[in-house]
Every structure is written in structure tokens, then in C-alpha cells.
């Protein structure tokens, strides 16, 4: 867990040059539309969708395509530089909004942000004890499977993870849309993000084994 902490407070340095003080410090990562005062741009509103976790994927896709059809730079290849710039900004914004809304975890995070809830993804690394135990067991299972180059074990681990993920996603949905409990949702979201990272680690391990098969 300390790894995440370190990542959040990473000190950046750059190759030495005499004239400069090179050390910078990352404040926060944020995704960004063109507007500098962007923190609370509402992606739901852009696509005319209600501000809630449950989403109509088809309506989202359709809105996204309709918007891109109007604003995409390909529509403005012969237009003035001013129009091309506006088109680039809008198309960028539409992509940003679409990518955020179609991913359940990013959508949840965005919704919480709109509600003014700090998810503490970079600062709050306190996890429930049982979740931490579970994590440790999974990590051990992953290491073992890697050492044994055991694809079947990896597959089983991936399935177990998928099951737990979908259970947690249901809780997340309830906290966000049902009996509203934003703080509980934020906690659930933090766990889910850990699980997503672990899922990527399993994929990497699989790839490593398959690549050398």
C-alpha cells in the first residue's frame, strides 16, 4: 500500500542543467478539458444524460457520436483556423467526457466529484482490514502462479477477481443511486481501483507466460 502513497507524493527531478533548479513536485493528476476552471465540468450534461451512476450505454454512445459528427476536426479540414481550434477543443472535450462516462470506475469518480466528495484516491490509502488481507492473499497467489508458470491458476485468480469486482460494483451503484451514501461509495471506489490494478498485474503475468510459450 505504501507504493501508492509514494506515487502520490512523488518528487520529480530532471536531468541536471546548471542554470535551473530542477525539482518539481506533482500536486495532482487531473484529466482536462480546455477550460482552465474546469474542475466541475459536467460530462453528463454534455451528452444530455441524467446525473447518476446507472447509465444507458446506447444513449451515451449515440450522443457521443452525434456530438463528434458535429465537432470533429475532420469536419473542419477546410475551415478557418479559428473554427479548427474550436473544433479541436470540442472534440477533445467530447472524447474526455465519453471515456469518463463509459468506464464504471471513472464514471463513479466523476459523479462523486460533481457532488463535491473528495474520493481521496491519492491521499487516503486506509483500507478495511479484511480487504487488505484479501489483497495479500491474492498477491501471494499471483506470485506463486508466476513462479510455476501456471496459466490455469492465473485464470482462476482472474475469475475470482471478476466475481468480487462485480459484487462491489453493485454496492457502488447502491451507494450512489439508491440509499445515497457518498462516503461509502468513495470507500468502495478506492477498493475497486486497487482491484483494477491487480487485474492488470494478472494480465501482465499471463502475457509474460504466453509470450514465452
Amino acid at each position: 500500500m505504501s507504493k501508492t502513497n509514494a506515487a502520490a507524493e512523488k518528487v520529480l527531478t530532471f536531468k541536471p542543467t546548471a542554470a535551473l533548479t530542477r525539482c518539481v513536485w506533482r500536486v495532482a493528476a487531473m484529466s482536462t478539458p480546455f477550460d482552465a476552471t474546469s474542475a466541475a465540468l459536467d460530462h453528463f450534461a454534455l451528452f444530455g444524460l441524467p446525473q447518476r451512476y446507472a447509465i444507458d450505454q446506447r444513449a451515451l454512445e449515440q450522443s457521443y457520436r452525434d456530438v463528434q459528427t458535429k465537432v470533429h476536426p475532420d469536419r473542419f479540414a477546410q475551415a478557418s483556423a479559428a473554427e479548427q481550434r474550436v473544433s479541436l477543443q470540442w472534440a477533445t472535450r467530447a472524447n474526455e467526457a465519453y471515456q469518463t462516462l463509459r468506464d464504471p470506475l471513472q464514471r463513479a469518480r466523476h459523479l462523486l466529484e460533481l457532488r463535491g466528495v473528495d474520493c481521496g484516491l491519492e491521499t487516503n490509502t486506509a483500507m478495511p482490514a479484511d480487504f487488505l488481507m484479501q489483497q495479500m492473499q491474492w498477491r501471494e497467489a499471483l506470485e506463486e502462479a508466476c513462479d510455476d508458470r501456471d496459466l490455469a491458476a492465473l485464470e482462476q485468480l482472474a475469475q475470482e477477481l471478476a466475481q468480487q469486482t462485480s459484487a462491489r460494483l453493485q454496492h457502488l451503484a447502491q451507494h450512489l443511486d439508491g440509499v445515497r451514501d457518498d462516503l461509502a461509495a468513495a470507500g468502495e471506489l478506492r477498493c475497486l481501483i486497487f482491484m483494477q490494478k491487480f487485474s492488470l498485474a494478472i494480465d501482465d503475468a499471463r502475457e509474460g507466460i504466453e509470450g514465452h510459450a
Partner: protein
Amino acid sequence: MALLQIAEPGMSSAPHQHRLAVGIDLGTTNSLVASVRSGTAVCLTDAQGRALLPSVVRYHSSGAVDVGDLAQQSQAEDSRNTIVSVKRFMGRGVSDVAHIENAPYDFVDAPGMLQIRTCAGVRSPVEVSAEILRVLRARAEASLGGPLVGAVVTVPAYFDEAQRQATKEAARLAGLEVLRLLNEPTAAAIAYGLDHAVEGVYAVFDLGGGTFDISILRLTQGVFEVLATNGDAALGGDDFDHRVFCWLLEQCGLHQLGPRDTRLLLTKAREAKEALTLHASARVTAQLDNGEVIEATLTSEIFTDITRTLVQKTLAPTRKALRDAALQVSDVKGVVMVGGSTRMPQIQQAVGAFFGCEPLNNLDPDKVVALGAAMQADVLAGNKAAGDDWLLLDVIPLSLGIETMGELVERIVPRNSTLPVARAQEFTTFKDGQTAMRFHVVQGERERVGDCRSLAHFELRGIPPMVAGAARIRVMFQVDADGLLSVTAREISTGVEAAVSVKPAFGLADEDISRMLRDSFEHAKEDMHLRALNEARVDAQRLIEAVHSALEADHELLESEERAAIDCRIEELQSAMKSEDHRAVKTATDALNRVTDTFAARRMDRQVAQVLKGRRVNELDF
């Protein structure tokens, strides 16, 4: 497609002028140019009826340049000055190119991109590519009967920033207006998708002469959406030739060949490989410089054996692309085969086995990319009516990031993000009173800076002195629809703006570019000033037309004084166009552009609002 067009009253406009635009496939081995004529994309041929232009350029000491077949014929006799497969060198340094010791050239290792010393002087790969593009441009203008408004130039999907920039620069040098850099597999998907009216998830497997791409796309009515792409920018038919070449050396007990023999045997190796597409074995005979005659027989089995690892090298990126698209093999409805190297039976078998279906070979793998590019050029030139066109959503192939402590990479834009994309990250000062910061922009998937490609270093100066941690420096990465990056940094906490803008130039300094332009004009006997003036006037005219049509459509969005300001700038531009000073034209163009900024923004707001109107009501409660 609409068979007859019904004009609504008051909506009919002047007969639409067909703008001449082309698609160019700038290939490692061959290049092509295509255009849409009477609604159909066709490859344009030279006077002899040949569509394929070998991507070979020969420099003579007289300053004359041969491109294509003529240059190819002199490969063996003048290998040092005859540049083949120049695409492998685009945006690359000497240490980046595999088997460079076998290339018979006198390389100059310039920072960012290598150069080649020829009898006509030192040439950058950008200049060599521009020679090829110039021939294609001339062919197109002769064939279509007029100057081009622009071209869509294709690049391998897995080309990085440096390689894309180099390609765009080459087009600029050849006097082409680049409407868009288009990924080759995406171009193929357009040609295939439109020809066969298919829907669903398709893979495009594109193995060319020097590059390999795999793209996964979702094709739906009027939308081509790239879900993921992967590949190897240094894997292609050339590598298969090289394996055969090495095998020949071993079989015949040869070492240390001169440039002429090397070129000869590489050509023989390629011929043998091509013969194996239809035959079980191929006989190789060659007479070396010293009179020695070598002979060998390459069988299909031997070839399969010596190239097995190369075939395998295409499958790992394929797996990664599927994984990034979050899809299984079974989700893929078909695999479109592109690039001359997919003719190898070994590739066909491997792809068939991996996807569990017969690969789709019903389009000419050499031409499909140029044809798709021509279709896209037709759309971008505005020759298609709204509703009759399509939307293309492509992705960035490689992640972009910034160097952080311990020479690690902080990823800012992840690979396979849909274009255009922007991401920002905030940084702050580490020391009290710090007034400058230095950033290193890199591209790649590896964690260590040394394993990624270095794109640019830039410094932000003029940060007001504050205590450590108080400054807020916002670094923004913007990748446009061509997949090209620009980076800006700005201090925002005090309202003091110190902004820098970086367009990584990859070793091509501005002086280099102006020297190349000068050289190319001398070579083409064109007047540089005249061309600059013409280009400025064309740009100005295009802008005036664009503004006029915008005013016609949406004039009510402007207050009367705003309208007056725009009209005034139009008049100023029109009078500047009558002068002989291209700078004056440019300045007046910029001024008109600036004064229409707000108007452009309002027009777009209204467009988007209209799209969503009417839907909001019925979809609020689903």
C-alpha cells in the same frame, strides 16, 4: 448513396466545386497515389500505366535525382547513392535502426534523426521521402488536371511522434498541404468497410515492407472507431529478406561483402521470398563482384524455419491490441489483410490459426491503403454531402509522459486514447524562490526513460519567486487528430502567465528546414518567394470563403459592431492579397482569424446544443 439530390427552396447553393484531393501511401517498398473520381477511388498511374512507384531515390553528382523504377534498376551499380526503404530511417537515429551495418550508405549521425551522405550532398530521410512525394504530386496534378487542395498521407499506426512529424515535414517539403496523417490500417478499414458495407468488430493485419500494424476497429453505420492498435515500427518484409540473406551468406560461406554485393544478395533474397508465395522452392544464383558465382536452393520448409520468430513477433502485438480493446478472439468478425508481406503463406497460416478464421484477402493488399486514404481525402476536402460521409475516430498508438525522479516515466496520455485528446498535470516548485523548471517529454510503454523515445526537452522560465510548493504549474499535453503532440506549461496560481509551446522537431532545427526548402527550390527551379506568396493567397482565399459561408449561415450570432469588425478585416485581407508581400497577406489572415474566434466558438456551441435538443426530454427517464 443518394441517387438524386432534391434541393429545398432557399437551400440551393452554387454548384459545388469538386476539390482535387489525393490519398498517398508512402510505403517502405512502394508508394502510391489515389483519388476519388466520379465517386470511385482509383490509383493514379504514371505514363506507362504503373500504379506502384518503388520507394527508391538515386542521387547523381550533377544534382539530378531519379525516383522509382529507374532508381531501382541502378540499386546494385550505385548502391551508395541509391536510397531504398528510407521509411525505416524516418525520425530515427543510427542506433535505432536494426541491421544498419548491412545498409550500404554513409550515415551521418545527426541528433534526433540520422542523415545520409550522397554524391549530391548530405540528405535527411525527410528530403529523400519528399523526392518520392514530389513525383506522386506531379503525377496526380497531371492526371487530375490541376493543383491539389491537399493530400491525406498515410503512416503506420504504430509510428511514433518523431516519425509522424518527419512524414508531415516531408509532405510540406514536397509542396503538399497535408489534410490529415491517416493510419494505414485505418485507411484499409475505410476502403474495406465501405466496399463491403460490413458492420461489427474487425481486425486489420498490416504487414508492409518495413512496418507491422494491428488495429482493432468497430465498424457501425457511418462510424469507423479504432478500439486499439499495436504493432512494431521495425518489422516487415525487409526483415524476412534479411533472414534469407543471412542464410545465403551461411550457405555459400561468405563474409564481409561490399555494398554492391550486399544489395545484390538482398535483392536475390527478396525475389526468392516472393517466389515461395507460389512455389515450394526457389533457386538463387548470383555473380559477385569478384566473379564468383553462388548458387543455393531455398525451400518453403527452410524459409518457414528461419522466419518462424519473425512470424511469432506479429502475434504478441496482436494479443496486446485485443487486450487493450477488452475483446476476445471470438469477438472479431474478420481479419482484413493488408501489405504485400501478408502474401507469405506463413503469415496467412499464422493469422488464420490465431483468429480461428480465414483471413480476408479480397482487396489488393498493395493498393487498399492508398484507396482508403483517397476516400478520406475526398471527405476532408469537403466533396461529400453531409450524411453521405462518415466519422473516423482513431487513437494514439503509444503513451506520452514526462520524466520523473529516478529516470522513471510519469504517464500523462495513455496509449489507445481516442484522438484528439488533452491531459494536464499540475506541478509545483521544490525550492523557495525557484523561477524555472525543466521538463523532458517522452513516448513509450516502458517505465524507464532510457527505454522510451525522447521527444523534447523544454524549460518554463519566469515563474514568480514564491515559497516552495506555492507555484502551480499546469503542464498540458494536446494530441491533435493527426496524432501530433503539442505541450504547453503555464503558471496559474498568481495569474502570471508564462507559457511555452513545444512542437517537438526531432533534430530538424528550423535552419535545417529552411535549408531543405531552399535546396528543394533550387532543385525544382521554383521561385521560393512566389510559392510562399501563392500559398499565402490560397490560404487567405480559403479563409475568406470559410468566413463568408459562416456569416451566411449564422450571422445572427453577431452583434452589429462584431460584424463590422469582421467585415473590416475581410476588406483589409482582400487588399493585402493584391500586394506582392506574402508576410502582409499572412498578417492580415491571422488578424481575420483572430477576430472570428468568438464567432467560431458561438457557432459550435449552437451546433452541439442542436444535436442534443429533443433528445434530452425522452432520455431523462429511461
